[in-house]
């Protein structure tokens, strides 16, 4: 019997020591940073950036919708049950709203991913290295541009060296939280713009003119640079960048306006766009442009067109009729834009039409010989004629402002146009506190170096 006891004890220990190894369990649906060892892995992190750009907190919804709710008065009304959206429409948002919180955190997640790519370029073959580097810079640059637009005073407000921008983070987080580098203060608006220009200029120089799978090209970077320079009032540069895109021959206006939207893949006028499919999209229940903009039962139908918006078009304008009647999930009937009607479709981020309007306006404002050789009148009429509306005989700077509103409504352009031109937004001074999103309260709580925007 003694033997039996010893056998039992021995067995127990054998079992136990075998079990000890069983405590090492590796995750099955995730990878750890140590596993990123090849060029494909690094490219995977780069491509992950596109996914985060598609998120509802970025171009998938909020970069466009929130911008338009900030300048909603003559454009859209929010009839849904999410009070946070209604608050932004009413300029009544507060610092605990999930909208600025998610926009902020998603943006920095993208920035961290891109910083990680830039940190691991040595794993990329030399022949590809510059392309990958500049693609990551492009994504980082456009995200900083959106951040500084939403969370800081506009560039047009001046004093850019002193006005607070957003924290500039250019190094990747090292997986194990490092408090010594975590509490970054806000850089100045100027510093953020400088970084944006540096990133985008690199991308404009190094990215190839064409890419597979609708990845960013040098023209995507140039198109964004034209926006940046327009915001800064650097009209020569804005016109040059827009002209560069127009004259590349890579893009052409689609024949009718509606063809620019609800596409699978890029249309011929998309310079940069976010792809969506049934499997990969910005959301179908509580987030995504279509969720909010499309009438129930496809979407929630929470965002309707304000009737007065349709009055800014002449009767013959194709764009005037690009809407449909519908209702919201909350029972409100109204008019809905045709731009975000269907799920799983491409979200145009920069279209060629905008480049014509930018080149024309920039040429007009700077004066002198027009960049690209075509007159501002010609540029505005190019856009108008596509929508079968009458050509203008003369053109003013205000014509461009109005035309942008007609052409780019519901695409998140209005508020930036008004702000850069120091024009009132919904009756508020363009620098009004609530036209700038609050630094999310959770960030203020956790990072004492952050200063809240005035008015919150």
């Amino acid at each position, binding site marked *: 019997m003694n033997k039996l*006891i010893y056998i039992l004890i021995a067995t127990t220990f054998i079992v136990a020591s075998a079990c000890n190894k069983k405590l*090492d369990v590796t995750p099955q649906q995730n990878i750890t940073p140590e596993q990123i060892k090849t060029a494909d892995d690094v490219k995977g992190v780069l491509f992950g950036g596109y996914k985060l750009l598609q998120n509802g907190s970025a171009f998938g919804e909020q970069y466009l919708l929130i911008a338009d709710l900030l300048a909603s008065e003559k454009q859209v009304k929010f009839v849904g049950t999410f009070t946070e959206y209604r608050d932004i429409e009413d300029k009544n948002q507060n610092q605990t709203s999930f909208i600025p919180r998610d926009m902020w955190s998603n943006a920095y997640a993208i920035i961290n991913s891109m910083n990680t790519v830039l940190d691991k370029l040595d794993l990329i073959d030399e022949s590809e290295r510059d392309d990958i580097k500049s693609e990551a810079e492009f994504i980082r640059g456009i995200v900083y541009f959106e951040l500084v637009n939403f969370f800081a005073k506009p560039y047009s407000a001046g004093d850019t060296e002193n006005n607070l921008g957003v924290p500039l983070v250019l190094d990747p987080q090292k997986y194990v939280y490092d408090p010594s580098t975590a509490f970054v203060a806000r850089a100045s608006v100027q510093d953020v713009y400088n970084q944006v220009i540096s990133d985008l200029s690199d991308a404009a120089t190094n990215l190839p003119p064409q890419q597979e799978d609708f990845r960013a090209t040098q023209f995507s970077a140039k198109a964004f640079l034209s926006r940046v320079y327009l915001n800064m009032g650097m009209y020569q540069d804005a016109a040059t960048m827009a002209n560069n895109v127009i004259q590349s021959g890579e893009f052409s206006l689609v024949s009718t306006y509606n063809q620019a939207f609800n596409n699978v893949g890029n249309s011929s006028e998309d310079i940069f766009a976010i792809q969506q499919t049934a499997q990969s999209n910005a959301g179908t229940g509580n987030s995504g442009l279509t969720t909010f903009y499309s009438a129930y039962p*496809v979407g929630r139908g929470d965002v309707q067109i304000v009737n007065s918006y349709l009055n800014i078009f002449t009767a013959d304008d194709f764009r005037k009729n690009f809407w449909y009647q519908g209702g919201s999930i909350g029972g409100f009937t109204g008019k809905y834009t045709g731009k975000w009607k269907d799920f799983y479709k491409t979200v145009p981020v920069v279209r060629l039409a905008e480049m014509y309007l930018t080149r024309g306006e920039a040429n007009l404002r700077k004066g002198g010989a027009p960049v690209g050789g075509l007159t501002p009148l010609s540029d505005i009429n190019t856009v108008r004629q596509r929508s079968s509306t009458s050509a203008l005989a003369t053109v003013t700077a205000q014509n461009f402002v109005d035309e942008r509103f007609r052409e780019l409504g519901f695409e998140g352009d209005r508020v930036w146009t008004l702000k850069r031109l120091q024009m009132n937004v919904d009756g508020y001074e363009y620098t009004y506190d609530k036209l700038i999103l609050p630094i999310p309260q959770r960030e203020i709580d956790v990072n004492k170096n952050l200063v809240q925007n005035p008015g919150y």
Partner: protein
Amino acid sequence: MKIFLFLIGISVMSLSALAQNLTITGMVTDAKDNTRLVGVTVKEKNQHKAVVTDKEGSFTISLSSAGGVLIFSYIGYDDVELPATENMKVQLTPNTKNLNEVVVVGYGQATKKQLTGSISKVSGKEVANVPAPSFESALQGKAAGVVIESGSGKLGQAIKIRIRGTSSISASSQPLYVVDGLPIVSTSQSDIFNDPTNPLADINPNDIESIEVLKDASAAAIYGARAANGVILITTKKGRNNEKTTIELNLTNSWSNPTRTFDFLNATQYVDLIELAAASDGKYDFKNDISGYATEEDAINDYKAFYEGNILDYYSLGTDWRKGEVNTNWKDLLYNHNAVANQIDLSASGGNEKTRFFASGFYNVQNAIVIDNKFYRYGGRLNLEHNATDKLSLGINIAVDRSQLNRVTNDNAFSTPGQLVAQIPISPVYDPQTGELNNQTLYGNGLFDAQFNSDKQATNRTVGNVFANYEFTPSLSFRSEFGADILSLYQEAFQGKQTIDGGGIGKANLIVSQSTSYNTNNYFTYTPAIGKNSKLNSVIGMSYLQNDTKQSASYGEQTPSDLIKNLSGTTSITTSYSTSDKYTFLSYFLRANYSLLDKYLLAASIRTDGSSRFGSNNRYGWFPSVSAGWLLSEERFMQQSKFFSYLKLRASWGLTGNAEIGESNFLALYGVANYPELPGFYPVQLGNPNLKWEKTSQADAGIEFGILNNRISGEIDVYKKHTSDLLLQVNVPATTGFLNYYQNLGTMDNKGVEVTLSSKNIDTKFKWNTSLNFAYNKNEVLDINGQIIEGGFSVVQRAVEGEPIGVFYGEKFLGVDPETGDALFLGEDGKPTTDFDNAKRVVLGKSNPDWTGGFTNTFSYKNFDLNIFFTFVSGNKINNAGGYFMSDGFYNGFDNQTTDIINAWREPGDKSNVPRIGYFYGSGYQPTSSRWLYNGSYIRLKNVTLGYTAPKTVNDFLHISSARLYVSGTNLWTKTDYPGDPEINTETAGNIGGGQDFYTIPQARTITIGLNIKF
């Protein structure tokens, strides 16, 4: 590990040589009425051999030596130890207070008297045949300090259970469940987009012999790293040796209806209120010169036109709302009336000299009070144990069952039946033009979803273990158990084209989940003879647990029609994923109980656990406990006392752990990003290689007493739980690219008192017993590094230092300004303000109660028995999170309103508690204020049961051994300030949210008729 060998050594030495056999015979009878007792275990002290008394109450046993001592034990009777004599006549006394009642503890058993820890025992009888979807809901009010929130009247939903308060913030605070020694899966395996479901519903309550709740550290620390939230041990029924086979049949049938619901407006009242809103908005506009109307009348008429045109005309579908042509009671449409449930349960138990068994089968169908929610289950159990030799016994406990839950969507979905109350009473159910269901309702008409959608979740569950017990010597035995808990779930949901959730295109999904747990426990029990006055009982062993959970889910859309109601009918897959998770625990444990003179009790235990949930830096944790007890009533000076018949003091301290944070949280991780054509990775989680167990140290002091010959008995415990190294999701600046990461940070306290009292008020032919338990718990978050962690629903709830977890935090509603009808809030300056932006956010109350308890009275007279059981909670608040739609005076939409809104402010000078209403200029509509926050205290008549046991003549006539017919009522009466059902919580998961009602289905009021027959 030398201690192992040492223990073995001692036991081997203590083996004594066998002497010649001596045969003793005798008979055992009941001391009270002299009936012969069948199946009494007769065992020679310190020997293996045991026999049981036969049908005549007689026994024959061979002794190992002359002068041996025999121990007689029988369930429900006090043990008797007598020197063996020829022709023994032994009388056993039924135990008055079950001090010798066997209580199951981790890896063993003990008698109540010997315990030094705090354990609540609930007998299986108390949970059997109760009309509840799972056994834990029947525990409510039965055990002091165990707080159970069923959440809603929906079936199969997860239940929130807290033993001595919430002891974690980011990790789970649910207890560990152990069935016959096997830790089982108790967390939802279901669709993550719906409410969590409850895997414990797979256990047949009628199979349960007893439930032991291990509350203090001394009781629970033997489960170490998983015990910080308490442990619930479930022991299933077993057969007994030489027991005549008893066949038991239980039949129940019950009918349920909702308990308390909100009162909503009828069509006339709704129209009146709409007109009031129009008048209110018109007057406000005119008074404040907003739109520049010429007269007040113009303004009112204009608003009237808006309301009537957009609401009344539009939604009445051409019916005459002025005459009240349509008066739909939408609330009525969401409930089943007299929802039927029934259960058939058949079991058999018995045994011969060597083998004992319990076998059962059951079939149960329950219809919820809410439409489209139904729960079926059926299954069987076999518990079998066989004595292969004198020394070796082996057996198996296994239960196999299948359940199917037909579900509705979560409370926050437009499609859920609970939200039908938002529809307006002038809306017809059927379109008068077409005769079809009305699809022009205020919100999408959930009746389409009710009619065309389905969501069926089928679970196959096998929980079982095999075990062998080997007795080397009477003082040393070894037990090995191997168990498995295999849960496979298959959930198919379909949303038709016409429905809200079908999105006009038709959708379906399929979720398949498989969770497999293996567990082995191997331990020695050693009870050496160490002297005349001392007893030592020790346990040493190891345990290994592994769980593999694999899940796959696919969501599709675009169906040709509604004919194929599953994923195969969809033509486009939108999401499809699989997950694979695994966790392991490896543990060693040692426990020793020492008693001196049967009155001084000491116990100590230590357990070490290693888990895959932590990195190699801190993989193992140590969890010790010590406890002591003093049986004062055994002291000579107390034996004179006529007052105290039983008195014990006990105290304990120990450390337990919590690791319930899910897998891989110590690792930095990337996930897969699925951008079209560009598959990639994105960072999802920061790592923390130093992550370790959350620790709870708990001190407990208790007194147990029986007075007046145990007519009154009771137990009082005070405890203090201190949780440190909280497994906390600590916020980091999002500029790092991450939001938070798990860190061991912070402390939290729970302090409380528990009292259990029972008394035999009258003990004659008419019997009246009373038992009362109540508990107080105070939780306080002490230190979370200054963070504020938020949860909750419309009113924010948070974990913040210096407050109990889950306090409601928002603007305090103070009533209505009689001059303007504006809502008043507590302002920053401490004075009432009508300016909401200037209102101060303050702590408004908490969702966890201070006091909880139960109060039971049982009466019996002749063949009748009556049981009346109340439960109560107090000190908590409930937020009607749906209030800002259903009671906001139309500001947030035109939802039908609760009847209290009729009393809204109308004219300057009106004293009302309901602010000015109106879609345009209503006041007090902000969801974050305390306007819809109520005192959540309640007392509820939880159950009344009246039973009749058939007399012997009837039994003989029917050839049965007993029969009992009973009728019971559940939730028959409730007293509360809350306008709906106070026993709701739409957020059963998590620690911060709670006490939130969002169109939540109330508890059921149920009448049950049942029959119990034993053959």
